[in-house]
């Protein structure tokens, strides 16, 4: 293992250990905040998977996040009586529904002559705008103001989980999502996706149904984003149309780009870092904070195309692909 790969591995482990030990040093309020950031981190992972791994730049990732959030809200508020109102059902729907929508959208976009580049970006962006408008006008899901009073995550007996318990629940969910993405990325499937990102035509000529692979990873990503959306709703207690819209789609793109799209952990930590910076700046710089944020962002993009953590957190290739082979 090279030095940089060792550094990447230790920093990744350190980051998770740090997250695990956070309740020892942080107070109740900060843990609540961290829980929110970690939820956004799961969302960022979902984009990191398709963008960093398969090269699909989706400008409408919030569609899946929002559908997940709405699913959770509708179930736990008892608006879908035939499904009951259990949070587990809610989470299951928050994963399944966005997954199906992603599969459908992926099928539309990638079949035949697939959309890519600017076209894919603008079409997904438009899809997000259309979904947001549709959500605003659909009374059943709360219309413009959305739905509120979504119950927080609760223990089986109905009591809301404590701040720390919620944190660990969300944190473990994030860890599992991360491990799932990591598993996909480091399996031969990940190699093939990287191949598609790198040279779609070559991969096609090796006999891969490129379209199917893209739809598959898009679907997995949709499910992850929806899962993040479901967890989000339990913490924030509401859903409303901006959650499926253009603004949030752009935000997640920014998190991933700043964190580093080529490395999953970079995308995850990007969400935490950007949200935290925004909060700090918005508090201390008054009306100049947006200017500072914009400038900082330009700087990262121009000077660090790999993102803040792209280089730092790069892991060694899986053992089977290691330097010098297996012997």
């Amino acid at each position, binding site marked *: 293992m090279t030095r940089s790969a060792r550094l990447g591995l230790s920093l990744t482990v350190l980051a998770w250990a740090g997250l695990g030990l956070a309740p020892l040093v942080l107070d109740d309020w900060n843990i609540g905040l961290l829980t929110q950031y970690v939820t956004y981190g799961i969302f960022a992972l979902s984009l990191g998977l398709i963008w960093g791994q398969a090269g699909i730049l989706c400008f409408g990732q919030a569609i899946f996040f929002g559908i997940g959030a709405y699913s959770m809200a509708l179930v736990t508020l008892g608006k879908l009586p035939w499904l009951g109102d259990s949070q587990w059902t809610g989470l299951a729907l928050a994963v399944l529904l966005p997954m199906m929508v992603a599969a459908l959208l992926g099928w539309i976009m990638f079949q035949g002559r697939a959309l890519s580049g600017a076209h894919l970006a603008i079409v997904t962006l438009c899809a997000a705008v259309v979904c947001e408008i549709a959500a605003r006008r659909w009374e059943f899901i709360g219309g413009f103001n959305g739905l509120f009073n979504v119950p927080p995550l609760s223990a089986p007996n109905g009591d809301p989980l404590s701040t720390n318990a919620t944190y660990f629940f969300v944190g473990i969910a994030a860890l599992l999502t991360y491990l799932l993405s990591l*598993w*996909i990325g480091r*399996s*031969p*499937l990940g*190699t*093939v996706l*990287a*191949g598609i*990102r*790198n*040279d779609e*035509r*070559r*991969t*096609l*000529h*090796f*006999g*891969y*149904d*490129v379209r*199917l*692979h893209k739809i*598959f*990873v898009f679907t997995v990503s949709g499910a992850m984003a929806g899962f993040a959306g479901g967890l989000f709703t339990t913490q924030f207690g509401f859903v409303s149309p901006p959650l499926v819209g253009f603004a949030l789609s752009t935000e997640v793109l920014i998190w991933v780009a700043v964190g580093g799209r080529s490395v999953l952990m970079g995308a995850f930590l990007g969400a935490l870092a950007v949200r935290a910076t925004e909060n700090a700046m918005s508090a201390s710089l008054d009306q100049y904070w947006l200017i500072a944020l914009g400038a900082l962002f330009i700087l990262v993009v121009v000077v660090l195309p790999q993102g803040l953590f792209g280089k730092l957190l790069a892991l060694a*290739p899986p053992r*089977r*692909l*290691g*330097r*010098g*082979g*297996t*012997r």
Partner: protein
Amino acid sequence: MQCILGPNGCGKTTLFNVVTGEFAPDGGEVRLGGRNVAGLSPYRISRLGVARKFQVPGVYPELSVAENIEIPLAAGAGRYGPLSLLGYRPDPVRRDRLLDLCGLAGKAGDKVGEIAHGEKQRLEIAMLVARDAELILLDEPTAGMSGAETSAVASLIRRLRDEEGKSILVIEHDMNFVRQLECPIVVMVRGKIVAEGRYEEVSRDPRVIESYLGKRH
């Protein structure tokens, strides 16, 4: 094994593009094992056992040598969809043999964009072998290689034919290399076949010489 010889721009690469499904032909058929495959998409044709080498080496520059090899190795599993790839474990012995074959055994972890041009060409041939195809199409496999390297590639290709029993179609304009392949040759000029036969016969054909060297030779 068959070799198609012809000067640059005579339609060799276009022929490959039609055979592998890159373009649909304007007319005529492409038969593979008796089945007309013209107009099928490239991945379907590839699954029928056709593998193709590109003229500009069709390797993945951002990936490592090992990853480059893994993609064609896993293609057999990949035909059952993405999920089957998740659990797929490539045979390490076979992989190492392929790396040896292309002479990149020590460079498994190197990024392909940064290895030498000749190494990329050899890597791509090894990738075709990894793909386990019946019919291998090689588009100028020695472009950019020195004399010694060319001979090595020629013997590698002969081995594929003799030991592994592959059908091989080579596009080349380098007469010297073609001679080393010891195979039947057709010569294409401007999209049409002008001569065919063994190297010795073809190389004496006046039309071939004209197309290659200009008419006064």
